[in-house]
């Protein structure tokens, strides 16, 4: 497997995504909107489950981030489907790139996009918590931030 060819495909995929950024932007913004709606519901569930000081963000933030992360990774399959639509799939297969290089080259940008989405969602949630105290009221803010990250890693 050639790193140079794989990187060429990665750059190419970023270029393609850059020409049509709306799907990824929606999947980054969408969880932020959903969190605002889901937080009260999660708060009630957590309070009823024996966490009287929970405010719902503990589940809404990592839960939405992971759910939408799956959507972004699912876009990898759409990247192959697009090649069929453009009639470039056979051309790509007949090129010097191996199957492994093509698959990795197409997957890496989506994984990066997914990580970027996590960072954006958590950064905004944590900023919101530190600024307005929405994430945690009585426990340490740092502990809440860590709780979010740990919930996320358990979910994924």
């Amino acid at each position: 497997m050639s790193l140079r060819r794989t990187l060429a495909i990665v750059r190419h995929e970023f270029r393609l995504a850059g020409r049509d950024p709306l799907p990824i932007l929606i999947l980054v913004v969408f969880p932020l909107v959903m969190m605002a709606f889901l937080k009260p519901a999660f708060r009630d569930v957590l309070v009823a489950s024996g966490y009287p000081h929970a405010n719902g963000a503990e589940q809404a933030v990592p839960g939405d981030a992971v759910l939408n992360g799956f959507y972004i990774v699912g876009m990898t399959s759409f990247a192959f489907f697009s090649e069929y639509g453009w009639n470039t799939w056979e051309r790509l297969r007949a090129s010097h790139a191996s199957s492994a290089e093509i698959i990795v080259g197409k997957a890496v940008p989506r994984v990066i996009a997914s990580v970027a989405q996590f960072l954006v969602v958590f950064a905004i949630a944590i900023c919101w918590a530190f600024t307005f105290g929405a994430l945690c009221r009585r426990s340490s803010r740092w502990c809440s931030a860590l709780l979010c990250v740990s919930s996320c890693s358990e979910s994924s």
Partner: protein
Amino acid sequence: MTPVLEVRGLRKSYGTRTALAGVDLDVAPGEIVGLLGPNGAGKTTLVSILAGLRRPDAGSIRIGSIDALAYPKQARRLLGVAPQETGVYPTLTCRENMRFFAELAGLRGRALREAVHSVAEALQITGLLDRRAQQLSGGERRRLHSALALVNSPPLVLLDEPTTGADVQARVQLLQLVGELASDRSAVLYSTHYLTEIEQLAASVVLLDQGRVIARGSVEELVAAHAPNIVEFTFEGPVPPFDGAWHGARLEVEGATVRVHTSQPGVSTAAMIERLGPRAAEIRSIEVVRPSLETLYLELTGRRYRQEIPSEATNVA
């Protein structure tokens, strides 16, 4: 001379339908081979298998000195392929499309820029390099499609009907570029339905029919061997009845026209007039049609279908 492409006994079936029934083919460096044949003859299947997109049922393929079926990845490095369907990335510019395939072929830096520039110039898309492919006309997109196969100057180029949908100017430019590739020692396998392109390229011909190579050679050799002269007699009224021997010539009657397929047009014309006697006055015109690639093509492929379909074609012995 060691061939760049060596195909032996290539077979491929789709269910019960046989697409290739034992194809043998050699293409030498610098040679342009025109792959001709009616629809369904197996041209696209052959190109797809050579490009490594399909596996044959049997046979062997050597590209350069590489066994292409055992080592497809290595063989692909010697190939440039333009499939039948136009395949470009519509949201990318022409330059980005070309750069991508050049990068995959291992070009970079100055060599990459020069390759993009020279192919773009040859196909006259230099002015379109920064335009997105989706904004191009059908012919311009077709030129870009061909450019993607040629950008890395591969030793073997497979072009599957590259001029379909291209305008006259684009076609001329592409043919010119194919000629230049051949003069640079690249071998070109060129599938087309436009017989004049084969004559313009001075290509040798492989004629496929029903999955078999039914003729192989230069246009001149094949025409001399297979395509007879045709003398066309057109009459004022109904065609008079003919009988008797015609020195092995074949007669074909269509409306008020009689076509005599003959290797000796002068002798056949004289014989016809003599045989007609006073009815020779009913002849409105006589035309000698010299053999060409088109008459050769029809002779070798069309005859088969005429044999299957009852017609007025006559063999006069």
